[in-house]
């Protein structure tokens, strides 16, 4: 399979005009993601302040829309500190390992349909590689390195703890993430994001959200929130536990790069949820001449903003998970559920009898698994070295036993 089969632009001989078009697409895509990051940071701060009955940024530009720019300029002129304990090369490399995957992932998101300009069919996405959605998985795999190496190279204990948490969390949720993507790929029959979107373009009832049942979407939304380290899964950056998390030791522009990649990922993943489950740019297109291409883009932006708002809403509404709860949810709930749902989808794709059969088997397996988790959980609690906090005796006796010899010594 070569590139030509998915992108009609590349099916003919490569001329300099085609190279120019690709270059323009890259530059425009970069501009779009950078601008949307600025707007996203503003939107998040404004929305969360409204939810907390605050005013939020309001000084720079109308409604404080230039606040991000002001913050960026401030960070740009701050002193760039590399701790003496740090591994200097890796410390400087890590922010780019976080940023570059975030930018690349945006490249595969289809922002609109195909536009023909001067005889050249141009897909409104930066790139449409045949491996499509796998690029997203690969890049989120690499971005783990950014976070992990940042914490490890800082030469400081809190960033190190944070990076341990990050690597464990992001790797364990990637399994559930991959399995839900497999259901989408199964029903589409193609890895290419453009094909995934085209398969859903006939109407709301063809969206994967409904065709696959709500479960893969729910799993994906939870798993991607954990993958992004966004609340309520932000144990990696838990301010109350780990100072600032993996970027504690970072300052100036390097810190800004982490910040940038985090919000870039939020936007990109909102867009990818829309691509996978909500038909991407699909939606009602009114019959206005010469403006057909605008409406898919507006649909795409609208849906993406909705999910961006959902992330902000999660942050405002939900308290942070404890670290073991994060792991429990990932390994004991989401991975078995996504695996079971994958089997059910595969069964229904053969025929209805197979589908109902696998559904029965999956439900049975689920019951067995739930029971085994309960039994195992009880056993683990009994044999634990320390009882849980609520079950521990009041430490008064211990304190007394510590105090008494001291009192006697004073009397003597």
């Amino acid at each position, binding site marked *: 399979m070569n590139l030509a089969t998915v992108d009609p632009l590349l099916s003919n001989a490569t001329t300099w005009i085609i190279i120019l078009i690709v270059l323009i697409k890259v530059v425009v895509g970069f501009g779009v993601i950078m601008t949307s990051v600025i707007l996203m940071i503003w939107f998040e701060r404004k*929305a969360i302040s409204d*939810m907390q*009955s*605050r*005013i939020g940024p*309001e000084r720079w530009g109308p409604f404080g829309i230039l606040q991000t720019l002001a913050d960026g300029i401030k960070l740009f002129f701050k002193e760039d500190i590399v701790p003496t304990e740090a591994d200097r090369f890796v410390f400087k490399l890590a922010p780019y390992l976080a940023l570059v995957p975030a930018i690349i992932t945006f490249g595969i998101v289809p922002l609109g349909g195909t536009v023909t300009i001067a005889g050249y069919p141009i897909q409104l996405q930066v790139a449409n590689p045949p491996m499509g959605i796998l690029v997203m998985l690969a890049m989120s795999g690499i971005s783990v390195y950014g976070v992990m190496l940042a914490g490890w190279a800082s030469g400081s204990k809190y960033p190190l703890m944070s990076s341990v948490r990050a690597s464990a969390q992001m790797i364990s949720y990637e399994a559930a993430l991959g399995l839900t993507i497999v259901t989408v790929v199964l029903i589409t029959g193609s890895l290419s994001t453009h094909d995934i979107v085209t398969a859903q373009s006939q109407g709301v009832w063809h969206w994967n959200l409904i065709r696959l049942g709500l479960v893969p979407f729910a799993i994906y939304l939870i798993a991607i929130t954990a993958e992004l380290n966004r609340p309520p899964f932000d144990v990696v950056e838990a301010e109350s536990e780990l100072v600032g998390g993996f970027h504690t030791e970072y300052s100036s522009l390097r810190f800004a790069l982490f910040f940038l990649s985090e919000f870039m990922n939020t936007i990109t993943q909102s867009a990818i949820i829309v691509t996978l489950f909500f038909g991407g740019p699909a939606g009602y297109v009114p019959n206005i001449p010469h403006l057909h291409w605008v409406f898919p883009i507006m649909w795409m932006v609208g849906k993406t903003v909705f999910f961006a708002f959902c992330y902000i809403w999660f942050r*405002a509404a939900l308290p942070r998970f404890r670290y073991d709860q994060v792991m429990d949810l990932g390994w004991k709930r989401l991975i078995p559920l996504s695996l079971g749902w994958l089997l059910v989808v595969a069964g229904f794709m053969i025929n209805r009898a197979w589908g109902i059969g696998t559904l029965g088997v999956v439900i049975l397996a689920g019951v067995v698994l739930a029971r085994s988790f309960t039994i195992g959980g009880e056993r683990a609690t009994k044999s634990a070295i320390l009882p849980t906090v609520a079950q521990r005796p009041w430490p008064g006796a211990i304190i007394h036993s510590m105090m008494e010899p001291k009192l006697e010594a004073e009397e003597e």
Partner: protein
Amino acid sequence: MAKWSDFFGGFRLTLQHLARPAVTSSYPKVKRAKQPRQHGRHVLNRYEDGMEKCIGCELCAGVCPVGCIRVRGLDNPVDHPVSPGERYGFVYEINYLRCIHCDLCVEACPTQAITESKLFEFSFTNRADAIYTKAELLVDDQGFPQRLPWEDWRSGEAEMTGGWMRATSPSGDADFEGITQWSGDLGFGVRAAEGGQSGQRDDEATGSKSIRHEFAPHLSSQDKLAEDRGLAPVLRKLQEQSERLKPKGTK
């Protein structure tokens, strides 16, 4: 025991808050109305005829827990007396690097010469500016506190100086509440009494505003004042707006 549906309570609450007005204000641009009994920067009052109220008795300096007040009295000059009576405050200095705004000086003063305005935003940049002398503390010829360059005065902060003092009843006698016990001030005459423990208050006369109105949308229904429930706040807001639209001087 928490219900399963409680999980969505946080989502509902945060959405509700989107519609509510902000609790915070855009601070240096907009200041919230001060509490009627706010303790701020001191003023030295004058009688309605322009005479100073201070008699140089040094009770304020004596009661001050941090020793930030320095007073020296002097006999009134016979031909042009500064205060009615025998003596007047010749030197009066307050060191605002020390003052804790406890208002004990205001309570101790036998002539209500010293009261406190509602201003606390004065950011001087050197130690000499921190020591306010009598020339700076004394009210001007209209009876308002003098405005120094580093002080951020807004409307309502200079009008009812020492409001709280005009609310409490002497010696704990509840019958004295609301009864005028004080002399008139230059430019204002005899000021109205603030509401005290009896709950009776005349906001129009004292010019004080309850900031509970501002917080009303954020209070639970049992904490709201009766006048903030139902349609009343909406009507009041409309009334305020219509008053603002009226041309000035046609009241």
